[in-house]
């Protein structure tokens, strides 16, 4: 007997709480996701050369960290300006585990996640005393303190020299090259997205959302706010740590340079552009910002080579900062729910066509 496929109803007819909690409201959603994941792992890695795979991999790493940041900012309503530094903690933790203790790849990455979660807890502690914006300021301080430690704690991080990592391998399979890393990164991303989506459906996720929407009401309902805020912060840092560890292994050698405040702002831009409070949105944002970065690099290279404007000593840094800032500002002003909302509007306009009222 064939099950009757569920289609989109022409209205909101949810009768039970289980209906609200469904990941896929229609069978087509489930089917398309399965097809998408299948294509992602069979077709996409063979679609282009190493530059294409490099961009795909950077997108994947950015998406992991952005999903983590969205759990904190989008679902719990706490702003973190130190996500870039936490990524750095993860990268260095993985590198130190790999070089100093000779830990294999599959131990070093989770260990990096755990250590970053712990470091995140330390900077999340000020929310013990205070609500609101103080966590933002404390994470800003965290950004600077971590940056300082990455450069000056030379016994551990080798300062400005950076660390070179050994080649990664899992179960005797050598993971060298962009293609094999593609599988590692995207399998991690798929797993972590699965965890995030299901986390939001549990008691914990609902508590996060309650804290975001109204912390007094949440406390009144008996949610221990402080504990949940810290938990959210630890989970978010853990995602950043995992992404950082993957980054370190993928880049082979790391320095503290990329993990600055601009990277943190970049992640904030990702989740705002993608959509706060939407897991899919964090992925859209990661894709958008990575492509924007590459596009800007192409654009400035092109302008410099064609000598159309020789009087401009064009460099990418100021333009990048300006465009990121502009993107954040425009999205907050005109579409505060981000690309996820744009996508939803497009979809529903198709669904409701031709009688969209």
């Amino acid at each position, binding site marked *: 007997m064939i099950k009757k496929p569920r289609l989109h109803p022409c209205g909101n007819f949810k009768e039970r709480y289980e209906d609200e909690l469904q990941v896929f409201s229609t069978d087509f959603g489930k089917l398309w996701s399965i097809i998408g994941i299948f294509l992602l792992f069979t077709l996409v890695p063979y679609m282009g050369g190493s530059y294409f795979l490099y961009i795909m991999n950077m997108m994947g790493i950015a998406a992991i960290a952005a999903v983590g940041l969205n759990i904190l*900012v989008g679902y719990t*309503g706490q*702003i973190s*300006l130190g996500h870039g530094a936490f990524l750095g903690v993860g990268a260095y933790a993985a590198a130190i585990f790999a070089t100093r203790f000779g830990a294999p790849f599959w131990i070093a990455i989770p260990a990096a996640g755990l250590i970053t979660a712990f470091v995140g807890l330390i*900077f999340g*502690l*000020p929310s*013990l*005393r*205070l*609500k*609101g*914006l*103080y966590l*933002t*300021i*404390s994470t*800003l*301080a*965290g950004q*600077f*303190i971590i940056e*300082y430690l990455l450069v*000056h704690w030379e016994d551990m991080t080798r300062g400005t020299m950076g660390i070179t990592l050994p080649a990664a391998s899992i179960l005797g399979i050598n993971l060298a090259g962009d293609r094999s890393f593609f599988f590692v990164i995207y399998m991690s991303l798929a797993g972590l997205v699965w965890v995030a989506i299901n986390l939001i459906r549990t008691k914990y996720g609902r508590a996060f959302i309650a804290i975001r929407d109204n*912390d*007094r009401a949440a*406390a009144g309902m008996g949610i221990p*706010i402080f504990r949940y805020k810290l938990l959210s912060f630890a989970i978010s840092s853990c995602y950043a740590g995992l992404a950082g560890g993957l980054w370190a292994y993928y880049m082979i050698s790391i320095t503290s340079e990329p993990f600055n*405040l*601009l990277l943190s*702002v970049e992640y*904030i*831009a990702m989740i*705002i552009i993608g959509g706060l409070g939407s897991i899919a949105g964090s992925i859209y944002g990661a894709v958008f910002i990575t492509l924007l970065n590459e596009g800007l690099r192409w654009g400035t290279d092109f302008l410099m080579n064609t000598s159309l404007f020789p009087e401009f*000593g064009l460099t990418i*840094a*100021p*333009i*990048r*900062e*300006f*465009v*990121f*800032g*502009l*993107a*954040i*500002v425009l999205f*907050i*002003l005109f579409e*505060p729910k981000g690309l996820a909302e744009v996508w939803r509007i497009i979809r529903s306009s198709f669904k409701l066509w031709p009688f969209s009222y």
Partner: protein
Amino acid sequence: MDFFLQLLVNGICIGLLYGISAMGFVMIFKASSVINFAHGELLAIGAFFFLTLVTWAELPVYAAFLLTLVGSFALGFIVERLFLRPLIGEPLIEVIMLTVGLASMFKGIMLFIWGGNLHTFPDFLPESLTFQWGAINVPPVYVAALIIGFLFLTLFGLFFKYSSQGIFMRSVADNQSAALSLGVHVKRVFALSWGIAALVAAMSGIVLGIMNGINVHELSSIGLKVFPVVILGGLDSIGGAVIGGILIGLLETFTGGYLSTSLKDVLPYIVLVVILLVKPYGLFGLVEIERV
């Protein structure tokens, strides 16, 4: 001993500058409870505007100074009008992220126009402002900072305490919707506070620029150093901002003088985290009895 005293004086003077820079920040926070991450960029824009007027347009210093003040007031006004007014009544988290975006945007524009190099003002402060006491030598720019600092501290203190606009600002900060329903012109309050904040920022930017030279990165990082200062002093206390600034300035110069210069830049942030843990409302901040 002389070294110690010189460090002490330097620390107090630098701290005063931090305090003045923090004042504009506190101004915005008091009026709209927005944490302004673009403060350092406002500072830098003021300094660069003054530089352009003095060196490129070759205006006399006083005219350039006045024009800069007017220009930065207008800038604050425009920023509020274009970017912050649509967000009145929206969640605070969006407003704060917006200032993060603005900071990035301004920095990009400044780097594009003036580049990342160090510029210096021509020397124009009169030598008679130099203060000499024994072996201690206070250069004129510090004396100017001292005068500006005290002038603005008194002005703002009086403004918030007695003027009706100041009281409106405090009411808006306390509860925006209640202020709205009592007939406070919230839009005007916002515009005014951003204008004044940009003006104060520009002034402290100029003074900082005379002291250290102007560089986009340096000045915008001072905008972030405002955070330890205001957290130490209490986020909503203007006097606290000045005292917090002096304490942070002293801390910095003594660490730089006796320990190491690289530790100097990160120590304020360590203090910030400790203060948040131990005495989160700072020395003079208003303690809200709310532990959620």
